[in-house]
């Protein structure tokens, strides 16, 4: 139906979508993104110029990595997670990855400052899911209100081929980075 086309979910999610339309109080996991799904046609923001980017367009025709972090400048994200992708960028490219994105529920000014502080320019692109719309829809949100003031992204990594999720790993303990580090992803490519 046109409603589903607008929401951008593929045929495989018809069942969960029908359920969602029927009942308002559906748990978020009914909308979870999983391997085999197409990314939704959502708009996020890249950079302090507030450039709007459409997820489906961004990942079309490319082999990409999208990893999510709970917060720019938070300890694990800063000491270990982002640096692993900056450091292993060339190795990832050698394995056929054409673009690497980092996503967080932080505004674009904070994301730019964090990118600058980590030398990510030209390697890892920063996506702001400022209102947590993507992480909520994908079942990848984490309530960190008590620590950071709001809903944040879980720590995850996806390998996406032509807009379709081929791999998805979510860190069981968001304060640690193990399966979502670049060298772990490299081994699976």
């Amino acid at each position, binding site marked *: 139906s046109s409603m589903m086309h607008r929401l951008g979910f593929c045929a495989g999610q018809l069942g969960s979508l029908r359920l969602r339309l029927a009942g308002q109080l559906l748990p978020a996991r009914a909308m979870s993104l999983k391997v085999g799904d197409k990314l939704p046609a959502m708009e996020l923001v890249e950079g302090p110029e507030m450039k709007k980017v459409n997820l489906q367009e961004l990942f079309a025709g490319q082999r990409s990595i999208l990893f999510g972090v709970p917060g720019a400048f938070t300890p694990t994200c800063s000491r270990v997670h982002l640096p692993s992708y900056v450091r292993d960028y060339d190795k990832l490219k050698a394995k056929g990855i054409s673009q690497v994105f980092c996503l967080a529920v932080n*505004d674009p000014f*904070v994301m730019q400052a964090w990118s600058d502080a980590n030398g990510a320019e030209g390697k890892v692109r920063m996506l702001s899911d400022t209102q947590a719309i993507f992480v909520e829809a994908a079942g990848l949100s984490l309530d960190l209100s008590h*620590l950071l*003031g709001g809903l944040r992204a879980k720590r995850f990594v996806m390998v996406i081929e032509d807009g379709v999720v081929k791999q998805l790993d979510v860190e069981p303990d968001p304060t640690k980075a193990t399966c979502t580090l670049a060298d772990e992803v490299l081994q699976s490519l």
Partner: protein
Amino acid sequence: MTSQVKPGDRLPQVTLFDGAPNKPVRIDELCAGKSVVIVGVPGAFTPTCHSSHLPGFVADFDKLKAKGVDLVICVAVNDPFVMAAWAGALGSGDKVLMLADSRAEFAKALGMDIDLTAVLGSVRCRRFSMHVVDNVVKSVNAEEDSSKVDASSSCRLLTKI
């Protein structure tokens, strides 16, 4: 919705965070018995806050001290890690204490909250400067247009202390 703070009001008893979520600070306890300047900004690392508003207070720190100010505090609705990183980037170190109003409790208690969800993702703090002595507000200078620095600048505040 709380009406905006004005001279004569007492500071609300709100907890802010100093560098990490496990480092809470009660603003009224911090300011008790002191002459304090509090600066509110919409967002750490946002252009105006970063390039004009805060640097003014860092630069005028000695002038403020000469007028008896004991402490300069900057507050924004950002998490404590972002505020600490911003302090580092500004080099504000021992001059301006950056405190995180993570859940906008302080901004709301002062009636200084502004909905910037569309651009920054959440309710934020209006741009303002305030002089407080022993938890009693002496002057409040709120910027009508939070994207500008005029009424809330450090040089304007210096004329009021």
